């Protein structure tokens, strides 16, 4: 083997091992940082994790939004028409948050069954429905149809 070929071989081996390690670490990081999505029905069925962050999506129930008098605390119900979960949040809401709007909340379930949100996401279009929420609504609809 000529010295140049040997150098090339060594370089290739080093690069491949390095890249493989980087990708493995990335995959591990990925596993720890993905957020699963659950609908209120799935939460009520106990499918959602009790001590990990996840995303909860649905429609904000009309007349369910209650604000505290002196703080930024807010409480509202989120539904996929089959089940409803109460969400508690502190802070600014996105511009398009509103009753009847489809939103996604990110946070954790607490022991009393309410959902403590760290972040509320609503998209910038009044006709927009997050695809996850739309999907959850569809599912809930078909479920009702089979199980009246």
């Amino acid at each position: 083997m000529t010295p140049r070929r040997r150098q090339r071989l060594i370089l290739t081996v080093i690069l491949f091992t390095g890249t493989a390690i980087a990708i493995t670490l990335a995959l591990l990081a990925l596993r720890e940082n993905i957020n699963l999505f659950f609908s209120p029905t799935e939460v009520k069925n106990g499918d959602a994790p009790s001590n990990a962050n996840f995303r909860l999506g649905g429609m904000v129930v009309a007349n369910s939004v209650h604000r505290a008098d002196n703080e930024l605390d807010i409480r509202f119900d989120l539904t996929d028409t089959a089940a409803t979960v109460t969400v508690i949040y502190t802070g600014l809401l996105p511009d398009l948050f509103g009753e009847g709007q489809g939103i996604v909340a990110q946070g954790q379930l607490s022991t009393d069954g309410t959902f403590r949100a760290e972040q509320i996401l609503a998209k910038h279009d009044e006709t927009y429905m997050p695809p996850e929420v739309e999907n959850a609504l569809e599912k809930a609809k078909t479920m009702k149809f089979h199980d009246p």
Partner: protein
Amino acid sequence: MIPEIGVFALVVALCLAAIQGTLPLAGTAVGYTNWVGLAKTSAYGQLFFVLIAYGSLTWSFLTYDFSVLYVAQNSNLALPLIYRISGVWGGHEGSLLLWMLILSSWTAVVSIFSYKVSNQMLVKVLAILGLISVGFLLLLLFTSNPFERQFPAPSDGHDLNPLLQDPGLAIHPPLLYIGYVGFSVPFAFAIAGLLNGQIDTAWARWSRMWASVAWVFLTIGITLGSWWAYNELGWGGWWFWDPVENASFMPWLVGTALIHSLAATEKRGVFKAWTVLLAIFTFSLSLLGTFLVRSGILTSVHAFATDPARGVFILSFLGIVIGGSLLLYAWKAPRIRSSIGFDWLSREIALLLNNVLLVVTAATILLGTLYPLILDSLGLGKISVGPPYFNAVFIPLAIPLALLAGVGAITRWKQDRLLRLVSELRTPFCISLALGLAWPFFGTSHYSLSAGLGGTLGLWAIVVALQGLWKRTSRKDRWRSFLSMPGSIFGQTLAHSGIGIFVIGIAFTSAYTIQKDLRMVPGEEYYVGDYAYKFEGVEHREGPNYRSEIGSIKVFRNSVQVAHLRPEKRFYSRQGSPMTEPGIDAGVFRDLYVALGEQLNDDGNWSVRVHYNAFIRWIWLGPLLMAFGGLISVLDPRYRRPRIRANSLTP
């Protein structure tokens, strides 16, 4: 009538692009010089007709022609003039037309400025650009016609998406697109080089110039996008790892690798096959970016519409371009020979390391961006990958990049000695460590070690870059040798210093930014950091196409007023959508940033988000410096040297 002229012009442009993509190539094969001559003419003709199409759409916007569906969707009678002009690229169809216009412009510019490139090469380059044009014109005409009519025409249009009604947006997408599309030129050069079996110094020089120009525009485009998000989204952040941001960042990373690899290919004739592969990757990622953003498969502020036909079309186009070029690569690349060796400690190795880090970074971002889509399409559940993942993979890969940028630039080609490097780097190391660690003691509320280390890293990048410049001046006559230095050296120094400024910006922003959501009562004062925010209430105001609630917040420091912020909450009545316009007091070392939430009760209480953003301007200043450095490198006179004869047709 005007919109029909637009459609007609697009059809003519399609025919010309088809000619440009086929006949001259056939001409070189069978020896018809007349056909070869068609390449440039059809490129100019294509630009002319695409310009007509673009002009027709702009005209329809200016004259409120709501019988054109796209115009009705993206403008209305109350829309100010500047947004009727920029509204042309406010939606999917128009932005594709802009893409097309930029592609034809690049093609024309390449055929004007490549008079020193061999005819063999130029004809193939133009043919490949012509074929890409064919793909995009077909996409425009068959799945995304911006001139589609509707009857009866509505009396008023919908409105331009309020997010896009900002001066920053008037320039952000065109710059980004010039960058994206610009990488089609080094791609075309790569394919032409493969076809000709000619990957040599002349080839690398031209590819490098075009890749650098594209890179400069992409850098400015991404920076403006970040600045726009900061100004317009009201979240106070500058980067969100949104899929669309990633879509522009991935080609940037691989494009950065490409211009560095091209430097090695040009100067030393090494990494030839790898450089070609990078050119293919960069353009593929640009196309993927277009696909991700425009197909609507991503839930994102940028996704305009969901239409499966478009998605299928772009996906197959993407498959043809990537698959075809990789096949060609597999076939031809084994014949490309890099003939020169190099030592283990040499600039070649440094550039290789730079390339590996950049490409791996892009790969991990690609993984995080596509992973949810792959899981979803396999029916394995809906997930999202958030900023924690991207930060976790990006930061460890970015630190060695910043560490090595300046070091690579002072390492010698072919062979260097470790002792020489160490003795050169000793002084910069001591300076940056001392200043960097001391920095957070001054002008901050508390000492942060991460800011100190980040400051050290940033200063290191700057000091090593400046030292490289200093060492190149001759001892006898510093001033004259400084002035006669090639532009590419200044460019490199500026760009590498830009990395340093960017790193300092990130380190200090993440260490010292304070964010608070407050409930504000009129007349009351609120403390955030050292600043007192006095809320004076909110008043109503009417804009041209929106209603606005505009707040008044005076900011005091040590009882001295430092800023009067006017955050706004706008309501665009036609679209029924609210918009947050933050009030910002910008500064070199800090931004004061407030955004209105909503009115909480009848006493005028509002929810307000208050930010103290430390050093955030540095995050945009750094990349701008990088882009400026790139620009200076491109102006280097070596790109204007006499034509190098390089018509070798080695099989």
